[in-house]
């Protein structure tokens, strides 16, 4: 692993972000809109059901965490797609760059961009809606870590899919978080799902996060065991996603797809 190679991948993304407001604004614009939307919904529900659950924590907290996960996943895939859009694979992989260095560069880029989004979300949720982020402090971190790991796994897997299916499959990437959200039980308890959906949910680390968040808000003990299991599951999924990316990459090198990768030739 050569750190200069990893830095080169991250540096390219930094240059792109720095020079382009159209790349910079989406890092926080959409998540900010979501926070405002769910903040008002939670405030309204708290007003009409003052003795109900704490909607600000459960709904706004869930929306905030889900947006963070989405941002992480899209952070990896967007960085990857930059190389698709600029037809850069031939230039990149004719250098001594290894696949692991390339993927790590994408992940580091996603970490940086997602932290920007998370900071904006927390600031907006705290300042505009009184979201008690600081009251939970370090307890918030394990939830974020699990979503962070799963977002990376899904981002790598989605990138492998685009590499295999071609640039036209890009549109399949964006709705993946929306497709998973019913299973992840972001806004409702896992128990309301039918058995087959619960079975799928148990393979998704975010479902443990949102169950744990609701339990914590309800005054139950911190769900350490569940979050540790979810973190292990997400870590294993990163390994599997990376193995999938490597397998797809090798297949594209064998088939010649990597050398002629462009919208015209593979769509």
């Amino acid at each position: 692993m050569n750190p200069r190679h990893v830095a080169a991948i991250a540096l390219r993304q930094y240059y792109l972000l720095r020079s382009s407001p159209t790349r910079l604004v989406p890092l926080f614009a959409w998540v900010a809109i979501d926070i405002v939307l769910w903040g008002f919904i939670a405030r309204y529900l708290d007003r009409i059901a003052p003795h109900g659950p704490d909607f600000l924590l459960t709904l706004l907290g869930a929306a905030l965490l889900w947006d963070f996960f989405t941002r992480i996943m899209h952070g990896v895939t967007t960085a990857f797609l930059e190389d698709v859009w600029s037809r850069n694979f031939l230039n990149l992989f004719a250098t001594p760059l290894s696949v692991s260095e390339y993927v790590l560069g994408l992940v580091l880029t996603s970490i940086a961009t997602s932290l920007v989004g998370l900071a904006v979300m927390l600031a907006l949720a705290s300042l505009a809606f009184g979201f008690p982020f600081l009251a939970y402090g370090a307890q918030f971190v394990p939830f974020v870590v699990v979503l962070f790991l799963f977002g990376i796994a899904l981002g790598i897997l989605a990138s492998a899919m685009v590499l295999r299916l071609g640039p036209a499959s890009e549109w399949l990437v964006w709705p993946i978080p929306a497709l998973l959200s019913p299973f992840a039980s972001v806004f409702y308890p896992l128990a309301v799902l039918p058995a087959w959906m619960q079975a799928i949910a148990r393979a998704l680390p975010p479902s443990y996060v949102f169950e744990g968040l609701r339990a914590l808000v309800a005054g139950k003990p911190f769900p350490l065991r569940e979050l540790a299991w979810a973190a292990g599951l997400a870590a294993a999924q990163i390994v599997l996603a990376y193995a999938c990316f490597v397998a797809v990459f090798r297949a594209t090198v064998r088939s010649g797809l990597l050398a002629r990768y462009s919208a015209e030739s593979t769509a």
Partner: protein
Amino acid sequence: MPHASAILAVRDLGKRYGTTRAVDGVSFEVRRNEIVGLLGPNGAGKTTTINMILGVLAPSAGEIRIEGVDLARERERALASTNFAAVYAPLPGNLTVQQNLRCFGLLYGVRDLAARIEEVLAEFDLMRFRHTRCGLLSSGEQTRVALAKAMLNRPRLLLLDEPTASLDPSAAQHIRHAIRAIASRDTLGILWTSHNMYEVEAVCDRVLFLSQGRLLLEGDPKTLPREHGAPSLEALFIRVAREPLTFAEPMA
């Protein structure tokens, strides 16, 4: 055994797509301070061969050694001393010239990168474009940027796939002179593909003719046409393209 001064040694290289043999048993060398022209009609297997040497296409058979390093076993080490420029692989248009050179300099592990970038910017007359996005440059300027990137790591093996294809005659001549100067000054070998036979005669020390994935002829571009009864290199090219079977036994 490859020649002692061989920078690139290709042995029995093959690439099959199903039943189609894109490259079939090709063997050749490129030596230090030598420019070798890889010639052939469209679909002959030139770019396939170059892609295999660049490590972005896996051969079905054969071996590629760059400075004695087996590309299949030690890809990163072999590619550290290689670089390329191709008309179909421009640098990302959304980064400036300097940003692209910095990123690729890191990827190639260039020492004292800032100083080296200044050198290649000066060498290829790109100083005034350093802060210009590559996508805004003309074809000739983009070719110079690609060549600057290709020289950034002082490669021992330089692969040039139709580097002057989109240039006007004046710009193409300038590029040819620049590459010729580099080849005589630095200890590197160059593999050059082109459809411009005038250019090949002017630049190449040796040429290889590929057709239908097989290496049919090899020799000095100035004497090879006469040896095969052709009035010029272009006439020989046309014969090889149209009547490959008349060149009987492919070269080993």
